[in-house]
C-alpha cells in the first residue's frame, strides 16, 4: 500500500522576538490511501501549522513533505500539482468562503486556476460535485451569506473535492458547527471516503469526534507526536499520560471510570520548551529521568508512544499515579 502523504522529520519554526518558536518539532508520519489519520492535541500544539505545511501554505524549515511519492516543491508547477493532490477544509465555514462570490464560482475556482476545461464544463463539474456533498443545483446560484453553517461547510467540501484530490486536510472541520450538523458533516465525510477512496488528515481537539472518524490516531503535544496507533488501540490502551489526561477530560469517560485526571497549568511556551520530555511539567508520573532525555517514539504493545515509563504505566494502569516529589 503506497502512502498518500509521508512526512519525514518535519520542522517548522516561527521567528519571534524571544527566539525560534518550534511549532512543529520533528514529526514523521504516513497516511495510506483511503485511511483517516486523526490528529489531536490542545490548541497551540502545532496541529494547524502541520496542516498548513501539508497544504503548502507554510514552508517547512526542515524535513520533507512527500505527496504521492513526490517531494513537494515550491515552484508554480509544483504548487498546482500539489493542489490536485491535497485540498483543505477549514474550521469556520463563513470565513472559508469569499462573501462576494456566488457558490458556483467558489466551487469551480480551483478548476480555473488549474487551467482546466471550458466554462461550460465547469458548470457540469460544479453540479456534479455539489450533488456529491448533498447540495442542490439551486444552491449554486446563492451567495455564501444565504446559506446555513452546515451548507457552507458542504460548499467548502465541494470546493476541496472538485479537483479530485487524494488527500483532504480537515482542520477542525466540524468544531464550529452545531452538534446535529456536526454528525451530518462527519457522515458525509465518511460517505465520500467510501465512494472516492480519499485519505483524510483529520485535525481536531475533540477526541470523541476523532475516534469516530479515524482509522489511526496521533496525539500531539508541543510540536511532537507523543502517541500514535490504531484508533481503538490508542483509545482502549492509552499509554501516554497526556493521552490519558485528554481522554479522562471527556465528561462521559470520566463518569465511566469514576475518576478525573485534570491537567494542571498551561502548555509550556514552545519558544522555551522544558528539557527532556516536554510534558513532564504537567505529568503526574514525572520523575528525574524525564528532565534528562527526550523520549522518542517507540513501539510499546500494539502502538507507538513517546514516554520513558510507558511499560510501567501500562502495567499499573488504573493504579493511583505516584508523584515524583511531594
Amino acid at each position, binding site marked *: 500500500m503506497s502512502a498518500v502523504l509521508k512526512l519525514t522529520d518535519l520542522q517548522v519554526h516561527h521567528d519571534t522576538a524571544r527566539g525560534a518558536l518550534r511549532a512543529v518539532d520533528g514529526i514523521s508520519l504516513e497516511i495510506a490511501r483511503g485511511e483517516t489519520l486523526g490528529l489531536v492535541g490542545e490548541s497551540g500544539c502545532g496541529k494547524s501549522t502541520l496542516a498548513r505545511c501539508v497544504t*503548502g*501554505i507554510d514552508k517547512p524549515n526542515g524535513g520533507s513533505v512527500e505527496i504521492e511519492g513526490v517531494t513537494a516543491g515550491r515552484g508554480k508547477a509544483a504548487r498546482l500539482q500539489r493542489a490536485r493532490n491535497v485540498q483543505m477544509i477549514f474550521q469556520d465555514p463563513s470565513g472559508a468562503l469569499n462573501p462576494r462570490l*456566488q457558490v458556483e464560482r467558489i466551487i469551480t475556482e480551483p478548476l480555473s486556476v488549474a487551467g482546466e476545461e471550458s466554462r461550460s464544463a465547469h458548470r457540469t463539474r460544479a453540479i456534479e460535485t455539489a450533488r456529491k456533498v448533498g447540495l442542490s443545483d439551486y444552491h449554486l446560484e446563492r451567495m455564501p451569506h444565504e446559506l446555513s453553517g452546515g451548507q457552507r461547510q458542504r460548499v467548502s467540501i465541494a470546493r476541496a473535492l472538485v479537483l479530485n484530490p487524494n488527500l483532504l486536510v480537515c482542520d477542525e472541520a466540524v468544531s464550529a458547527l452545531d452538534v446535529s450538523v456536526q454528525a451530518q458533516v462527519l457522515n458525509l465525510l465518511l460517505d465520500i471516503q467510501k465512494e472516492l477512496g480519499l485519505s483524510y488528515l483529520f485535525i481536531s481537539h475533540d477526541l470523541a469526534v476523532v475516534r469516530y472518524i479515524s482509522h489511526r490516531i496521533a496525539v500531539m503535544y508541543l510540536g511532537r507526536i507523543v502517541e500514535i496507533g490504531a484508533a481503538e488501540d490508542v483509545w482502549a490502551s492509552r499509554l501516554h499520560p497526556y493521552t490519558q489526561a485528554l481522554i479522562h477530560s471527556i465528561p462521559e469517560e470520566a463518569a465511566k471510570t469514576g475518576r478525573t485526571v485534570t491537567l494542571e497549568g498551561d502548555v509550556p511556551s514552545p519558544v522555551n520548551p522544558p528539557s527532556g520530555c516536554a510534558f513532564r511539567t504537567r505529568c503526574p508520573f514525572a520523575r528525574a529521568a524525564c528532565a534528562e532525555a527526550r523520549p522518542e517514539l517507540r513501539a510499546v504493545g500494539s502502538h507507538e508512544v513517546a514516554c520513558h515509563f510507558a511499560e510501567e504505566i501500562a502495567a499499573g494502569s488504573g493504579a493511583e499515579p505516584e508523584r515524583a516529589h511531594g
Partner: protein
Amino acid sequence: MTGTFAHIRRLARHPSGLFGLLLLAAIILMSVSAGWIFPEGPWAMVGPTRLHPGVDPRFPLGTDTYGRDIVSAIFYGARVSLFVGIASAAIALIVGIVVGAIAGYFGGKVDDALMRLTDAFQTIPNFLLSIAIVGIIGASLPTITFAISIVAWPIIARLVRADVLRLRTYDFVQSCKIIGMSDMRIVFQQILPNCMAPIIVTTSVLVANAIIVEASLAFLGLGDPNVMSWGTLLNVGRQQLRTEAYITIVPAVALVLTVLALNLIGDALNDVLNPRLKERT
C-alpha cells in the same frame, strides 16, 4: 458584482443620498452642456460690465467686471472642478490601492517600507505642497491634479492596507493559496472586492477636497490661466466685494453645493454599503 444595481437603487431611496445624487447630476449636466449652451466660451465679453443679477434676462446671474456672463463661467467652471476632482481622486485611488494592497498582503519589510513612505507623504501639508508644485512646474490642470493626488493617496493606502491585513488571514484566502492561485490574483480579484465599501465612501470626500483645493489655488491666482474655474471668478469678485458681492457669492454657492452633494453621497453610501443597516433602509 450582482449587488451593484441594488446598491444604486437603495442609494436613490436614501433621502440625503437622493438629494446629493440630484445635485451632482445637475453639476454634471452643466459641465457637459456648457459647450452647446455657451459656444462663445466663458471668456467672451458678451454684455455690459458689472450687470447685477436679475436686471437683464439675457444674463440671469449678471456679468463680471469685464462683461463676461457669470452663468457661462459657472457652467465651464463645473467642468474644471469635476475634471480635477475625478482625475486626482482616480490617481489617488490607483496609487493608494496598489501600495496599500501590497503592504497589507505581503507584510513584513515590504509593509514597513511602504508605510514609512506613506507617512512621509501624509505629513506634507496638502495645500502648501500644491502651491509649491504649481510654483515650480507651472500652473496647468494636469500639474494641479498631480499636486492634489500626491497628497491624497496615503489616506486610501492606509484604508486598503488595514482591510487587506484583516482579510488575508481569512480561510478563503488560505484556500486560494492552496489551489495555487497567484498572489496578484488573490489580492486584486479575491481580497479587494471585499474592501470596496470604505474606499468608495472615502473617494467621495477625496473628490470634494480636490475641488476645494483647485478653487483655492485659482482664487490665489495660481490656477491654470487658460481655464475658467470657480476659483477664478472668486478672485475676480474679491476686488469688487463691497459693490458687486454677487460675483463672489455665485461661484461660492456653486462650490458649497458641489461639496455638499459629494458629502451627502458619501454619507448615504456609508449607510447603503454597511451590511448591518441593510434591513433597515
